[in-house]
């Protein structure tokens, strides 16, 4: 009987798949142990990725939502020297708002001052905000520990002057023994060179939000600031909030282009320098670096955990190949090509890896979703949460499951497991049928 020796290899594939699948269940206990080790490793990696993503998101959320926002605009001289006169014209705010109706904007002003209370005094950093706009851009005014976050006029002094409410940072309140209702005097050098001073009422004390602000920050309204500092022609900082963070880069570029057009039509003073548009990563490089580092850590941890689990695969396949050398010899003798034999052994490893990936992904995802919903509660040991990279975290660590993390972790596990299968597969290929069948 003559046969076509060039018949398609595709006819052989189903049988090779079939034999490989059956082979992995020849020793079900050993295969299940291998699957357990690989799946367990995958579960660990998925959980770690979910918790890290949860922390990262909380970190980004705190970094952007509490005070910084997604994008900030300054003059270069303000960035370099905190130059009080390096302001952005108020007229530009309207122009930008009209151009980008989907964005939210919060102008801010800053000044250094000396703060005095009943029997204490300390250096202070004034941050003036428009409460209505600020509430749309950050959650700063929502982190109140005591009192109400009011920045309006508290009352009128005996001289008929308005006395404004201010909000103070947590540590400053502690250091200066301030509480809601306390009186506070601020003295500063105004924009016109005169000494500006005024009496304020502490409306509220904030929770810790940012180390610098906590230590010396005082929030007041822009109106109160202008009366103290005589600086009315512009603002120092414009914080911008995006609805969709994924569009950060194009929005930043669009804002930059718009400001370039405005500068062409309305040139600014040279001393203040150009207008600079920076996103939160550029504003907080340490946080951005840490996020990048966390991705690398995830990869390293993933390799270690999955690599260790894959040693189980290596052991299983080495044992399986060792036990079946005679059988492989027979297959080679009856005409199976070495390449097909190698393919079959690699397929067995692939099936083990796929079963592990499937079970590990399902279990890991379910656990990650549980932690996304309920989190890990550390409030007993850390009631005020924990501080990492200068950012205060909630005491409940919540996970966040990204489907692509499950996919990447599974692919990593399958990849490492397949690498681990190469040694046993290679041993199979080197078998000499006449020797192994003796």
């Amino acid at each position, binding site marked *: 009987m003559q046969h076509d020796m060039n018949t398609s290899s595709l006819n052989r594939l189903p049988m090779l798949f079939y034999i490989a699948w059956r*082979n992995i269940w020849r020793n079900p206990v050993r295969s299940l142990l291998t699957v357990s080790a690989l799946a367990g490793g995958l579960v660990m990696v998925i959980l770690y990725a979910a918790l890290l993503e949860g922390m990262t998101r909380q970190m980004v959320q705190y970094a952007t939502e509490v005070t910084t926002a997604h994008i900030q605009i300054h003059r270069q001289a303000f960035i370099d020297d905190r130059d009080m006169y390096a302001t952005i014209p108020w007229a530009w705010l309207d122009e930008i708002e009209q151009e980008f109706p989907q964005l939210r904007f919060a102008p801010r002003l800053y000044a250094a001052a000396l703060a005095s209370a009943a029997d204490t005094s300390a250096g202070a950093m004034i941050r003036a905000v428009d409460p209505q706009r600020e509430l749309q851009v950050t959650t700063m005014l929502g982190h109140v520990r005591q009192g109400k976050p009011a920045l309006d006029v508290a009352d009128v002094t005996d001289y008929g002057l308005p006395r404004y409410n201010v909000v103070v940072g947590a540590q400053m309140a502690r250091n200066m023994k301030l509480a809601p209702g306390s009186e506070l005097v601020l003295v500063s050098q105004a924009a016109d060179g005169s000494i500006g001073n005024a009496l304020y009422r502490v409306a509220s004390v904030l929770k810790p939000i940012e180390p610098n602000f906590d230590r010396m920050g005082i929030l007041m309204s822009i109106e109160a600031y202008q009366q103290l500092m005589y600086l009315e022609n512009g603002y120092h900082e414009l914080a911008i909030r995006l609805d969709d963070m994924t569009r950060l880069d194009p929005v930043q570029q669009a804002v930059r282009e718009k400001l370039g057009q405005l500068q062409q039509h309305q040139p600014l003073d040279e001393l203040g320098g150009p207008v600079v548009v920076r996103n939160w990563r550029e504003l907080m490089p340490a946080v951005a670096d840490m996020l990048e580092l966390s991705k690398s850590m995830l990869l390293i941890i993933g390799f270690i955990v999955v690599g260790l689990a894959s040693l189980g695969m290596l052991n299983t396949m080495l044992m399986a190949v060792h036990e079946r050398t005679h059988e492989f010899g027979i297959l080679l003798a009856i005409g199976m090509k070495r390449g097909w034999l190698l393919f079959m052994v690699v397929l067995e490893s692939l099936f083990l890896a796929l079963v592990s990936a499937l079970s590990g992904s399902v279990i890991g995802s379910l656990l990650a979703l549980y932690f996304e919903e309920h989190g890990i509660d550390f409030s007993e040991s850390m009631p005020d949460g924990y501080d990492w990279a200068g950012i205060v975290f909630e005491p409940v660590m919540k996970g966040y499951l990204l489907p692509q993390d499950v996919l990447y972790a599974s692919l990593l596990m399958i990849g490492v497991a397949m690498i681990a299968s190469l040694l046993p597969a290679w041993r199979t290929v080197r078998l000499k049928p*006449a020797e192994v069948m003796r």
Partner: protein
Amino acid sequence: MALLTLEGIGKRYRQGEIEVQALQGVDLQVAEGDFAALVGPSGSGKTTLLNIIGGLDAPTQGSVRLNGIELTAMGEAELSDFRLFQLGFIFQAYNLVPVLSALENVELVMVLQGQHRHERRERAEHYLELVGLKAVMHRRPSALSGGQQQRVAVARALAAGPRLVLADEPTANLDSENAFALLDIMHRLSHEEKTTFIFSTHDTRVMERAERIITLRDGRLASDERHERHSA
């Protein structure tokens, strides 16, 4: 023309510090349709000669030609194809793939040949019927007796349509009843299918059934005799 021609076959290999001359100057011709037993005491070189004929081992001297094609000049891949399309193998034990049923085991060589499903299924069932195992063809080897497993191996060897079937001690692990049954099946199929059989053995039961007895002693061809086959 002879189907198989061996000329001056020699095989030498090292076993630790000792050099073993397994075969020396073996000349042999096997005609199409021969039902030949390769006999001799242990260590006489029977298995080595079968391995050389089957392309599983290379001689250190001499030439092997099957149907005029020189085996010693073939590369690894060519030898694989040669075994796949021209030869059938029956071994002493552990012949079958344990995770496949009897039917799938018989189909296996045809799968490797690339035959289409319908054709190979038909042939596999036909040969299992010829060896009397159609009723148990869906059983795995572990659910078959030793004799049944060897009959499946015979069906596998023949279903792929080889020119030559090589059997290395095929009855070594069988009781007399099963051994005779297996030999009768092999002999009948050899005649029906015009397939050449060479089997190594030191089992006198096998020798009684052989039409030709080739005797090896100390790696040399000691005798080559033709016999009338005795019926069981």
